[in-house]
């Protein structure tokens, strides 16, 4: 009996969400279409949430509005136009390409091109700098000296480790 009561108590929070679920019951197909549309629309009150996920009062009203317009047989595009005419392009998560949104749409590509251009320019400059380096006689002598030195130390190290080297090599 006690366990039954505990299990019932666990169900309580679910019951408290029933208020939200009730709109779903009416017409699941329409509800799915509404949520699909609302996911691409911005809630104006909590601007980083979609109309589908927002719990703001206005979002609930707008979902009701969208639902009613769908029942009237309006197309998705007509409903989007209806909302845009009231709240502006801001409600769209996918803003239309316009003169004012050109930077938004193409800015990143311009920046990418500028970046690639600068990278190529730098690489070319670096390559020419490397090619321009010429060794003087002094450099050659120093390099040879350093190489001999390491060769000798390597040899002594090998000998002390008891490795015999083929003298012809």
């Amino acid at each position, binding site marked *: 009996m006690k366990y039954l009561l505990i299990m019932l108590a666990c169900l309580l929070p679910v019951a408290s969400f029933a208020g939200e679920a009730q709109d779903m019951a009416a017409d699941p197909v329409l509800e799915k279409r509404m949520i699909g549309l609302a996911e691409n629309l911005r809630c104006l009150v909590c*601007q980083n949430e979609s109309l589908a996920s927002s719990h703001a009062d206005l979002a609930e009203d*707008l979902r009701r509005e969208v639902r009613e317009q769908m029942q009237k047989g309006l197309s998705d595009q007509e409903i989007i136009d209806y909302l845009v*005419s009231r*709240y*502006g392009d801001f409600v769209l998560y996918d803003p239309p390409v316009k003169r004012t949104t050109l930077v938004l749409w193409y800015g990143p590509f311009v920046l990418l091109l500028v970046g690639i251009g600068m990278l190529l320019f730098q690489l070319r400059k670096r390559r020419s700098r490397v090619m321009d380096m010429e060794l003087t006689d002094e450099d050659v002598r120093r390099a040879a000296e350093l190489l001999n030195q390491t060769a000798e130390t390597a040899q002594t190290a090998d000998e002390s480790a008891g490795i015999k080297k083929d003298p012809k090599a």
Partner: protein
Amino acid sequence: MMRFILPFVVFMIMAAFMYVGLNLNPHEVPSPLVGRAAPAFTLPQLHEPSKQFSPQDMKGKVWLFNVWASWCTACEHEHPVFMDLARKNIVPIYGMDYKDQRADGEAWLRKHGNPYVLVVSDAEGRVGIDYGVYGVPETYVIDKQGVIQHKQIGAVTPEILDEKILPLIRELQAK
């Protein structure tokens, strides 16, 4: 030298953009309704529900349409500005009690004073949607032809009233 100038210039450009960005208010969404006819509606009045009001009744007059609610705290801050403006008799102010209980709206006006010529009640918020209301208070300046000339999102402060709204009203009244 170029090695230092170029990053510095890039940094300054970015800093300038960010500085401007910091001062922008993302909650101020430019309304597509400015420059268009105020959406028509017919709503019952708050104090006399049997009587109705619609914006067509206001043709030929410049008027302010203020959307408020008793649950809205920013409305309390802005309210003295309208009380003051109403006393000066410059422009008629009409109110819309947005998504509110009638009794609450009336009580709020009794407590804070009533600057409105009349108040309509939009209990379900449908007219609010037509006007693109997304955060009360919002205030519309509507001209003699019934065209929305300005939308103020958020509370009207004395500065906004003196610098933006009143000059616009005078200009529209002179037309």
